[in-house]
């Protein structure tokens, strides 16, 4: 729908590496967690970009890196024509007004000591927008109304609300600054199922009313499919596939995306009874020591003896804007290459890797 518009934000080869420190008196760097390792993507104005992947894939780190809540190690982040990474101190702080964030856990992301009013005013004050008292008051009430909370909420505290209402407060806090971009990190995964729909609908309404641009980060493919225009799939720090939401779900081309989609349960017994699952082998490799070549080749049922282990596939346009990072995407799609058994490689959970969750584990069905 917004094919012609300029990208609002563009990431070019962004990397976020966390040093692993060790040592008693003085910290020594003994290695790196390659949480995000070379991601390029762009989000057009008014678009919703969905980023999916399992825990430990680096999707949250990418979202935070984009807002410079963690410092990217390399790459460019072009927001509305300026490289955010080149901004220093006060300039960066000022720039934050236009790029806001919604957190996963609405309770922990709201300071328990602040009333809703204080939570909402804080951002306005930080940007010198709270000078006119009447105007501020009007703005707060308007924002609360937009997220579906009564004006009486202003004097209440976060712990007095239910989970869904807290997430509305979190959204209001981001919204009150009138941002252009909102990064939402798992905005509904901490909420009850019946509440998730309310928040998703709210996010959509707000986008329609205010022309917001979203980067929605989630592990739930159904949620992302519902809300996103474009979807990017991450695996072990890199983007493996990117396509419009419809294309991706109609024809996933990367082997990992295929496995991921086949694993999502659908609340319909007729579908569940018929479907065939692609079950992945082995553990998610450690992001401190990612596999050579294609990151996925150690678990890929379609892995080939050539190229996969020694050449990292670039994200390339395969058909009409459908980008895939797989050497053999076309051959797999046409059925020329068939899936095969994969030998399980043993991977140890990594300890102390900062924001990266301990990787999960997969083995083929007996």
């Amino acid at each position, binding site marked *: 729908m917004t094919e012609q518009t300029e990208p609002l934000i563009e990431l070019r080869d962004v990397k976020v590496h966390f040093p692993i420190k060790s040592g008693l008196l003085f910290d020594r760097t003994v290695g790196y967690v390659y949480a995000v390792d070379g991601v390029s993507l762009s989000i057009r104005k008014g678009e919703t970009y969905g980023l999916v992947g*399992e*825990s430990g894939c680096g999707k949250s780190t990418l979202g935070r890196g984009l807002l410079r809540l963690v410092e990217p190690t390399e790459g460019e982040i072009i927001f509305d024509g300026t490289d955010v990474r080149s901004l220093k101190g006060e300039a960066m702080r000022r720039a934050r007004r236009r790029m806001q964030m919604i957190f996963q856990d609405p309770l922990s992301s709201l300071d328990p000591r602040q009333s809703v009013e204080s939570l909402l005013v804080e951002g306005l004050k930080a940007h010198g927008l709270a000078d006119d008292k009447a105007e501020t008051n009007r703005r707060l009430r308007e924002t609360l109304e937009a997220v579906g909370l009564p004006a009486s909420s202003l004097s209440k505290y976060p712990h007095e609300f*239910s*989970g*869904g*209402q807290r997430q509305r407060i979190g959204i209001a806090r981001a919204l009150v600054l009138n941002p252009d971009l909102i990064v939402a990190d798992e905005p509904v995964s901490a909420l*009850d*199922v*019946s*509440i*998730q*729909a*309310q928040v*998703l*609908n709210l996010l*959509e309404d707000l986008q329609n009313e205010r022309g917001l641009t979203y980067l929605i980060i989630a*592990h*739930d*493919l*159904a*949620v992302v*499919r*519902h*809300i996103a225009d474009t979807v990017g799939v991450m695996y072990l720090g890199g983007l493996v596939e990117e396509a419009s*939401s*419809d294309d991706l*779900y109609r024809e996933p081309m990367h082997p990992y995306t295929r*496995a*991921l*989609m*086949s*694993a*999502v*349960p*659908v*609340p*319909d*017994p*007729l*579908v*569940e*009874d018929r479907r065939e*699952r692609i*079950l*992945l082998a082995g*553990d*998610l490799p450690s992001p401190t020591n990612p596999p050579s070549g294609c990151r996925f080749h150690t678990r890929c049922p379609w892995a080939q003896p050539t190229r996969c282990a020694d050449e990292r596939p670039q994200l390339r346009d395969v058909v009409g804007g459908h980008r895939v990072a797989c050497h053999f995407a076309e051959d797999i799609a046409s059925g020329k290459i068939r899936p095969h058994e994969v030998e399980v490689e*043993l*991977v*140890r*959970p990594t*300890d102390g890797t900062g924001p990266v969750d*301990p*990787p*999960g*584990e*997969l*083995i083929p*069905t*007996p």
Partner: protein
Amino acid sequence: MSLLDVRDLSVVFQRRGERPFTAVDKVSFTVEPGQTVGLVGESGCGKSVTSLAIMGLLPKRGNKVTGEVLFEGTDLLKLRPDDMRDRRGREISMIFQDPLSSLNPVIPIGIQVAEVLERHQGRDRKQALRESRELLDAVGIPDPQRRLTEYPHQISGGMRQRALIAIALACKPRLLIADEPTTALDVTIQAQILTLLKQLVDETGTALVMITHDLGVVAGLCDTVNVLYGGKVVERERRHELFAHARHPYTHGLLNSVPRLDSPRGERLHAIRGSVADNIPWVEGCAFAPRCDNVVDACLEGPPPLEPTATGGDLRCNNPVSEEVAVR
């Protein structure tokens, strides 16, 4: 006779200085041998408390459990703690949401499996270890000989859940209660664990009570589904009937509010209004009434009864979603 027959099970929490809170309100359901039964609902619906009450695992103080839990005709609630402890792990097992906190971090996995066999089956250590290796193999843990001597933190989350399933199934129990066993896991691992559970239940004939908030998990697994709301069963149906036409406005709303991977895009989600905080007490009427689109006057005149439906299920609603609308 049913394997498990829960009759009018109630759990009331009474904390000092606070109003008593009824977490489970006269819940009844049965599990036949080899059957898979789902308890579905959102946080606070009483599904986990129900399972803990069945297992006799609720804290000794601060709560009152009433009703009957008949396991092969024996009321588990009347058993002495020692007898109940003996049955736990041998006849009824349970697996929990968080595999790491359910395993003892300082004891090797193999020993943890073996200990169950030693306690309940009277095996000696050598025999128990041999059997535990076979069990770890059966739940799909690679290289089980080496895993025997490893500690829980050395293996990944999915493997830990497999180890827990091995412990739970060590004594070939007749009933396995799984409380959100895949909620802490990634989807691809969830698929693995669900496939494993399904396969083990088929092979061993163990009955399974699956407790989850995820309707998708239930859809592929359970024979019968109990939908809980505010501590009461509001709808009970066989799987295909339930998903084909959910009659209770809550179940119906829930099914319509979750985005589906295979549904056409761009459709607005039909959200259920409000949250569980809006519930009214069951004595006043239907707890769901404040959030319900189908609410009628009768809904505020005491709790609606659980009545049998034409399709063989049970329904607690004065004004259910009509058959035509219910079909999706």
